[in-house]
């Protein structure tokens, strides 16, 4: 077999993809950001919607919570650097307890704790107390004793007696237990965007709320992702990419999660405006599926990093990320999930195990195979 030109192949395949996409996927799903499903559905190129010149998109509460987790992470990283931190301050931040003044750099009205998966609140509070109690030390971690581990660039991480990095378990953990949990178990459910939810009257136009409840709820789901409004594959825009946005961006090269999730959100939002609820349902299903796939891809990305990593600090860091992202999948919506809670538990509790010093490459390959099979990532699992 001889090739006259490798340059031609991508161009041919560019043509092919639209053909393939249009026959293999749900035919009525718009994949191109400018396409229209029906004459009544207007899908914008960015996540911006307006009514009579007034923007109808609002998710300040979510942005506030993203800011709070950012501030908590800054606090946690002080412990990674060997400094003492206070558990009272962390717990105050988590619940945004303003007694005696805000623990944050600025006052917020919302809090993370009451939006965190209820059964796991004590798990996260426990971790916050533990990191504070182990903070301020400069001893090197060994199996059985918490301490610092050096990363490749010389910086350190604080790990527990089992070699798990507190900062990752908490930060990435709350991305799952709070942000993702709120998206899939609250805002995308029938209670928030189903037939009983108001999509007729505007909330409070005299106070700048030009949106219906249903519109607002979808925006709140979107706001938890940390995606810029103009997010797309190969993103090169200037807006800040945060939390899930960052990980989607990393996975995007292989699974185009940025565009898939964005397009589904934009189409779903347009369907709400057009009151086309069958399209809304269909797009919401895509959102569920693509977010879960992105999380699984992120977990595999960190598993791959862990397997090839010779620096102990980097390895435990990457494995802590993998652990937290796999754990996030346990918050998947009960009607939409692909792995049961027990199946996810088996992956992080039994396979990775709670002691990272005992984890093996074959444990991780088991997880990698299971996730890639379940979430349709087999063709890209080695290059994530």
């Amino acid at each position: 077999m001889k090739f006259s030109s490798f340059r031609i192949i991508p161009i041919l395949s560019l043509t092919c993809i639209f053909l393939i996409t249009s026959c293999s996927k749900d035919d009525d799903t718009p994949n191109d950001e400018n396409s229209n499903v029906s004459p009544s559905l207007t899908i914008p190129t960015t996540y911006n919607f307006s009514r009579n010149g007034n923007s109808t998109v609002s998710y300040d509460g979510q942005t506030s919570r993203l800011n709070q987790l950012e501030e908590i992470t800054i606090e946690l990283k002080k412990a990674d650097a060997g400094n003492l931190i206070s558990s009272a301050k962390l717990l105050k931040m988590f619940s945004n307890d303003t007694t005696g003044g805000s623990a944050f750099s600025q006052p917020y009205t919302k809090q993370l704790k009451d939006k965190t998966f209820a059964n796991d609140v004590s798990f996260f509070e426990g971790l916050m107390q533990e990191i504070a109690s182990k903070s301020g030390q400069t001893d090197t971690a060994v199996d059985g004793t918490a301490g610092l581990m050096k990363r490749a660039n010389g910086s350190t991480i604080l790990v527990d007696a089992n070699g798990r990095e507190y900062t990752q378990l908490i930060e990435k953990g709350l991305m799952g237990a709070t942000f993702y949990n709120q998206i899939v178990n609250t805002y995308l459910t029938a209670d928030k965007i189903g037939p009983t939810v108001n999509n007729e009257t505007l909330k409070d136009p005299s106070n700048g709320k030009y949106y219906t409840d249903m519109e607002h709820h979808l925006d709140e789901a979107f706001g938890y992702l940390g995606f810029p409004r103009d997010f797309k594959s190969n993103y090169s825009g200037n807006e800040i990419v945060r939390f899930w946005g960052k990980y989607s961006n990393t996975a995007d090269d292989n699974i185009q999660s940025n565009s898939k999730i964005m397009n589904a959100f934009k189409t779903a939002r347009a369907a709400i405006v057009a009151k086309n609820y069958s399209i809304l349902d269909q797009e919401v299903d895509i959102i569920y599926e693509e977010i879960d796939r992105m999380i699984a891809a992120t977990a595999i990305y960190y598993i791959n990093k862990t397997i090839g990593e010779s620096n102990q600090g980097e390895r435990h860091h990457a494995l802590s990320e993998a652990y937290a992202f796999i754990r996030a999948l346990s918050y998947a919506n009960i009607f939409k999930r692909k792995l049961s809670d027990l199946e996810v538990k088996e992956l992080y509790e039994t396979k990775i195990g709670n002691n990272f010093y005992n984890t093996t490459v074959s444990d991780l390959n088991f997880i990698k195979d299971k996730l890639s099979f379940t979430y349709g990532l087999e063709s890209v699992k080695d290059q994530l």
Partner: protein
Amino acid sequence: MYKALNIVSIGLVLLLGLFSCSEDKKEEENDIDFDQPALLENLYLVIAPNYNQLNSSLSELNVKVDSFIRSPKTQTLNEVRNAFELSYNNWQKVSFLEFGPAASVGLRTAVNVYPTDINIIEQNISSNSYNLDAFSNLAAKGFPAIDYLLYSKSDSSTLSDFNDNNRKLYLENVCKKLATQISQVNNEWNTSYKETFKSQIGTDIGSSIGLLINNLNQHYERNFRDGKIGIPLGIRSSGVVRLNDIEAKNSEISFDLIKSNFDAMKNIYFGKNGIGLDDYLNASNASDINSIISSQITKIESELSQFNGNMVDAIQNQNQELLATYQEIQKLIVYWKVDMPSRLGILITYQDNDGD
């Protein structure tokens, strides 16, 4: 699968688009008349025998270990050391191929983490209770652990240490584990991965050439330049040398390993006596890049020929020469990592560890 590949191609088109806007490489548009399957066929013939050779030398090592632990004496010690040195040299011929079978088991990390952790090794020996697969033991096994066990003390002390059954068992287990892991990867290169490697044509992220060039570069930068030379020399520590971080510190065969490693990477580039990346560049209107790379390779080989065996001696007695060698090694990175991939339309996708 089809879709995934196609999507990757779109990214490539977009990227090529960017390249052609920002750089004046009009010849990129020209057809490349090159037989890529023949290149992969030949590269397979360069790679596979190296794995086979490594595999055989590890079997031999285990035979010698067996004789040694039955009867620890000068002769058996020398035999086991010779078998170790041969195996460690053979490892250098495949160490940069951390993709496919090797990547899925994390081979490099499983067999060559140095500096080795003496405390964990001694703890394992005295407790006689350990799982060599556990992450906690990655720095307590593989070639560096054997280097420590066989060479860190005088011959007489080593021989008397090896009267201890736990130490015998540890050496045996480490060597067996090493052989098992290599054998698994070797086996895949000989069977299932053989066709995979040859059939993944093109220049996408997952193509064999894409994987090879990415891994060659990543290895060259981190493990060859930094790991073998730069870090011990103090390049990453403001000139403060780090003698504990030398590869093969106790057996003192560092420069043999460095030369074997560079030679093997060179063989991949030139395809030994057959089609190599050099021919691919020539066919891609990039013979200018090929001549620069070829002469830089010659230059590095000549630099390396000044050194023999012991890295500690070189750092102390030939410090300026070694720094100059490092600079020449550094120069090749631009040609291999930037020029070659861009002229062949290959994306360098590996990145440094995320800082968060």
